[in-house]
């Protein structure tokens, strides 16, 4: 249920995003989802790729600092209040959402969001108990 997300450290300078993207393109690896968190001075490039182990070793060989993080892909109804309904589940729980970002495609009437929880397993239980669909990596390929 959990997905392996790769995070790369990047200096906040022109041209620093393109090198890892080119590298993955040359290896025929697909970037399925991507988010860039940045401050004035540095950024973190977070990606979900088709073959994370291969991507990680290629990026590390190229000299990047790479971290693997477990994240959860959640289907959220694509209508007003859809996201709020999901977030409501975690209000008052001990589970903390560290960050989240949206997938670039929709599944029918639903949007897909990537969540980074501090306790992913507990979060998946909460979501499934509420009848919310949590996607595995195979489901992401069916876009």
């Amino acid at each position: 249920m959990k997905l392996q997300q790769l995070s790369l450290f990047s200096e906040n300078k022109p041209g620093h995003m393109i090198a890892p993207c080119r590298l993955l393109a040359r290896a025929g690896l697909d970037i399925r989802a991507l988010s860039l968190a940045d401050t004035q001075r540095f950024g973190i490039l977070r990606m979900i790729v088709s073959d994370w182990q291969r991507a990680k070793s290629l990026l590390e060989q190229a000299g990047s600092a790479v971290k693997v993080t477990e994240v959860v892909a959640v289907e959220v109804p694509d209508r007003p209040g859809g996201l709020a309904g999901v977030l409501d589940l975690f209000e008052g729980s001990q589970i903390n959402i560290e960050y989240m970002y949206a997938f670039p495609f929709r599944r029918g009437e639903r949007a897909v969001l990537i969540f980074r929880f501090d306790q992913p397993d507990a979060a998946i239980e909460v979501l499934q108990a509420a009848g919310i669909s949590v996607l595995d990596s195979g489901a992401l390929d069916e876009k």
Partner: protein
Amino acid sequence: MIPTKRTCLSAFHPVSAPDYVPAAQLRELQLSRLKSVVARAWERVPLYRNRMERHNLTPDDVRSLDDIAGLPFTVKADLRDTYPFGLFASPMEEIVRLHASSGTTGKPIVVAYTQPDVDVWTSVMVRSFAVCGLHQGDVIQNAYGYGLFTGGLGAHYGAEGLGATVIPISGGNTDRQLMVMRDFGVTAICCTPSYFLHMIDRAAELEIDLRELPLRVGVFGAEPWTSAMRERIEDLTAIQAFDIYGLSEIIGPGVAVECPCQDGLHIFEDHFYPEIVDPESGAVLGAGEEGELVLTTLSKQAMPMIRYRTRDITALLPGACPCGRSLRRMKRISRRSDDMLIIRGVNVFPSQVESALLEVEGTLPHYQIILTRSHGLDQMEVQVEVTSESFSDKIGALEQLNDTIADALEHVLGIRVEVTLVEPHTIQRSDGKAKRVIDRRLQP
């Protein structure tokens, strides 16, 4: 009444008489002072006595000035190892002043003065100002920092001793400096050369024409500077820019100063005996040969320094100076024989940066120190390569790493420096080793 610009820079000043003592007489004075300072150090400071005994020496072995070459050296680590008062040769009740400068570890280096020491310091600063053509009636703006740093008070006592008017404005607040300079009819400025370059820039922004002011002399020191910087200062203003040299361990500013010939710095060698040695072997080098400056205080009471290794690289210039002074000259300091950096007057060693990084990260990451100058102030940036171990995919954790490193560096160095996390393998390596320091401060 605003004073008008003076044209005569080098009128003979009565306090300058010792600068012109015939060489033979000067050597005689140096020898008698050397004998008494060595005896004092031997009698009162265990470190000196133990070292001399190890070399089978007693003060009686100093019979000529050449015998100084047989005495053991003193190094900065000796001040650190005997922190705080271990090298004092006077009881505390005779000590009237303490100053401190940073050492190679977290502990500063403490220096002490008796009243006669303060008087000697004042006299060499008075003579320094006189060499630069200053006298009673001059208005001296002292923008060296006042405090534990010797620059501010050293220049202050000298300016007062000269009978000039001193404005103890200390460093910083450039707009106020310029207002005071213009409104008070300042004729001379004391500060670091880089700070004065900043004042020049700011004056242009404020549309103050420094050439229209009575300002005619700058006494610049406390950091290395270049001929190009002097030319720039003298081109953009109507002042003559003089280089002054000193270090806390010896006395503070006033060890040596340029005369109007601006060809080397005259050492006040009736109080500070200079030698140039090979930094590797310690062998004494001849006139004109470049090496490390070694100084012996000839009249210091509270804290005599016998053959102190300054780590500054220079040469004693052969031949007489056209100004007529018999005091020998040394070349402008070009570099140091160790890796010490002077940043905003604070001594910094790359080893201190390494210890702080090691403490934070557990292993030593690749790092680089980049020194620049902005608005006349030294800026130090430490770039640290992020590793897979130190990297977190949370922004907050990375910012915290950044702050933790900055805090650890401030704790060790005593100054705040900028920390930048950079991507792995981005710091250039030559022969596999990263170049630790990039100094861009002297680039025009």
